[in-house]
């Protein structure tokens, strides 16, 4: 798969790489800032899995809805949330995309229909089904894409949501990021059925497994699935086989997996394999790569500067937005 030619227009082919780099550099920086105690709480990095968010989100329209998890910096960014607003959110500044109240796990953006930032495992899945129901009832054609990990598929919420989506034929794209671990629990140690597509198909949701380390494979599979959702009105499920290169969160001592396993997956890293392909096809040269890198780093540093310059929400407004304010007459 990794050797199939990239047949995209050069601009778009590079865009995919650019976006993976943007996520990678953003998160590497966030990890550093966590070390400096600028960012606190739980911080879950997506490093190694970037091909999934990038490949999927480039296959959606701007007005499609997206529901994600606590590992969602990349998804927010690709939905169009400015990097500065993401970084400021992690700093707890009111310039953040959730005014600093959400932090890393609760990025939101109404403008781009990015519905979070959900820190309850599987909690976003039935929520996405409801968004799709609303779309269907209003006669719209927008898709709701919902991201979650393979661990979430053991939750009852996932089973109930899959059934509802299939029963009512709702336009949901289920995007399962199978990175083989839920915190420290390997898939085979938590689910009797490790063939996730088989599990999901039994709910009558069409399902397909995809190489999640290959941004082109992700993008192509998603385009087909989104088309199927729009054509049929019903749900589709994609399993993206991927891997997180870092710990689950900043507290994880990683006792549960071999270094060798991590290293083996790293050789399939989505960024270096894809940029190698681009270079092999002469869609990119080293200078071009360095330019993209520099661009990403510059964006990150600007985001950090934005966050640093950000301000704290006054304590006086703490109680605002527990309820929606009454419209002023």
């Amino acid at each position: 798969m990794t050797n199939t030619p990239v047949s995209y227009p050069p601009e778009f082919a590079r865009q995919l790489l650019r976006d993976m780099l943007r996520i990678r550099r953003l998160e590497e920086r966030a990890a550093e800032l966590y070390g400096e105690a600028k960012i606190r709480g739980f911080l879950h990095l997506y490093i190694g899995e970037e091909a999934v968010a990038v490949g999927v989100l480039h296959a959606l329209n701007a007005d499609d809805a997206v529901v994600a998890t606590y590992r969602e910096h990349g998804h927010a960014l690709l939905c169009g949330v400015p990097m500065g607003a993401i970084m400021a959110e992690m700093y707890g500044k009111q310039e953040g995309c959730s005014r600093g109240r959400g932090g890393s796990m609760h990025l939101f953006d109404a403008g781009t229909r990015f519905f979070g930032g959900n820190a309850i495992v599987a909690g976003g899945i039935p929520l996405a089904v409801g968004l799709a129901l609303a779309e269907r009832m209003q006669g719209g054609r927008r898709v709701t894409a919902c991201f979650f990990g393979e661990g979430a598929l053991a939750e009852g919420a996932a089973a109930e949501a899959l059934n509802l989506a299939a029963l009512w034929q709702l336009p949901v794209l289920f995007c399962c990021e199978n990175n083989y671990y839920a915190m420290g629990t390997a898939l085979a140690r938590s689910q009797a059925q490790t063939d996730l597509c088989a599990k999901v198909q039994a709910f009558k949701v069409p399902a397909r497994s995809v190489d999640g380390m290959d941004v082109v494979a992700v993008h192509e599979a998603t385009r087909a699935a989104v088309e199927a959702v729009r054509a049929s009105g019903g749900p589709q499920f994609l399993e993206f086989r991927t891997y997180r290169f870092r710990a689950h969160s900043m507290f994880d001592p990683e006792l549960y997996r071999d270094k060798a396993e991590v290293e083996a997956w790293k050789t399939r890293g989505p960024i270096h394999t894809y940029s190698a392909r681009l270079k092999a096809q002469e869609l990119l040269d080293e200078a071009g790569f360095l330019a993209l890198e520099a661009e990403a780093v510059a964006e990150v540093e600007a985001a950090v500067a934005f966050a640093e310059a950000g301000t704290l929400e006054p304590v006086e407004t703490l109680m605002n937005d527990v309820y929606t304010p009454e419209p002023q007459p």
Partner: protein
Amino acid sequence: MSRITYREALRQGLREALARDPRVFLMGEDVGRYGGTFAVSKGLLDEFGEQRIRDTPLSELGFVAAGVGAALGGMRPIVEVMTVNFSLLALDPLMNTAAALRHMSGGQFSVPLVVRMTTGAGRQLAAQHSHSLEGWFAHIPGLKILAPATLEDARGMLWPALQDPDLVLLFEQGALYNQEGELDESEVVDIRSARVRREGRDLTLIAYGGTLGKALAAAEQLAGEGVSAEVIDLRVLRPLDDATLMASVRKTRRALVVDEGWRSGSLAAEIIARIVEQAFYDLDAPPARVCSAEVPMPYAKHLEDAALPQVPAIVAAAKGLLGLA
């Protein structure tokens, strides 16, 4: 005025809301073909069709969360959880998501969802079908809680609840479904205030939902014994209407809360705490409460009766407060 049951009043409210706003739809277990477990939604499927009267699978978590999503997506869903007992399966989307979403998103997303559920005991349905948890739900910031006790509220609370931009839980008292009376069509129903249902001088009885009728009966009996009890119907359990409560308590100087919830950690405790915080020096006696016994509800009628607040206990507690015991 028209003669009508609490069930029919609720149905009228549903029908009006469905007719008035195309974004409104009803979803829940057996709301459609079956005609509603307690026949509240009977006939609505024929009238409004399958799209708007949606029978769901047995998946309380799933369809409540889907209701949250549908509200975010622009609809005005009414989700029926058949009884509050089963809502324990759906607390995560209610508390962790819907109630928190607006605040944690920095004010970006409101959840205009109404969840209806039947609450309360009194029908010999035993431990797993008799909870009164509306007062317990009232602990949760970000949501509003309604407890219609009258026909007017049964019919009239739904529409303002649907106009409310935030999550509203509407608790229907199971034991009241068959209660019949005259509906006052002219009453304007809000979802903000407590109401004085009977004026009095000597003490304030504070009740809601299933206990309002008992408090009124107790007041009647007390009147016969020369005691003038004021009766307040809370109506809205969150946020509480402190002003109405305190005005009454300052006047009568004595308060008795009647609450079908289990005693410890009841809404009655919160009301007592507020009275103490806001009106301590106006009190002539410690505020008191009559609540349910702290026991999983037994099936046998005499035990169920013994576990629930009853008129004689309310009368006795009221007299106790007045030193007439």
